[in-house]
């Protein structure tokens, strides 16, 4: 199945793009996708500390399953305000 991945701020610069479509096996979890992305983009590894995920517009834990066509966002530590 395909999922959409978006990158923000330091992660966007580390990966060199703001989004991509990724093919993953059915049943892949958020955490497994993160490991796959880290293998694909070595520059992501140093940003692992404090990394969070969103499915759509809500925070998602690494154990949550992905669904076909879902939107996954990789969120580095936030710094608004």
């Amino acid at each position, binding site marked *: 199945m395909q999922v959409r991945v*978006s990158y*923000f*701020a*330091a992660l*966007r*610069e580390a990966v060199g793009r703001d989004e991509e479509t990724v093919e993953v096996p059915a049943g892949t979890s958020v955490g497994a996708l993160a490991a796959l992305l880290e293998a694909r983009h070595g520059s992501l590894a*140093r*940003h692992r*500390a*404090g990394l969070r995920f*969103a499915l*759509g*517009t*809500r*925070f998602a834990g690494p154990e949550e399953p992905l669904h076909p066509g879902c939107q996954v*966002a990789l*969120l*580095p*530590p*936030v*710094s*608004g*305000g």
Partner: protein
Amino acid sequence: MFLLTREPLEAEPLRRAVAGPANGAVVLFYGDARGATAGRRVTGLAYEAFEPMALATLRTLAQEVALRHGASAIACAHRLGPVPVGETAMLLAVSAPHREAALAATAEYILRLKQDVPIWKREQFEDGAVWVGSADDPQARRAAGPGARA
């Protein structure tokens, strides 16, 4: 009223959005772009957001924080894109019948915003730029403690 904008922020619309005859207290907080971090001169800031999630989270936090402290209403606006030093990057308006609730809700809302709203700040220095709190930020370790980053 919740707003992400690339234009300079105006406080009066936020104040009006939360004020009312039941509210004897209105707190307005301005988060301004600071010209120095840990002794280094900051020449400018820029903000980026995951906009739909940032807006949704600003709203959800407002409901939670207002309920917990007995505040009546919360409105928040945040700048995106470049923000010159000295200009306002974030505006928060909180109303309540009495000041204790409005002040407590203001403090907690800012704290929660800095923890959970997907907005990122890029500080430009004379010799480079850094995403605050990222692996590239020399201050990130210091900032890891609660409230370490103001």
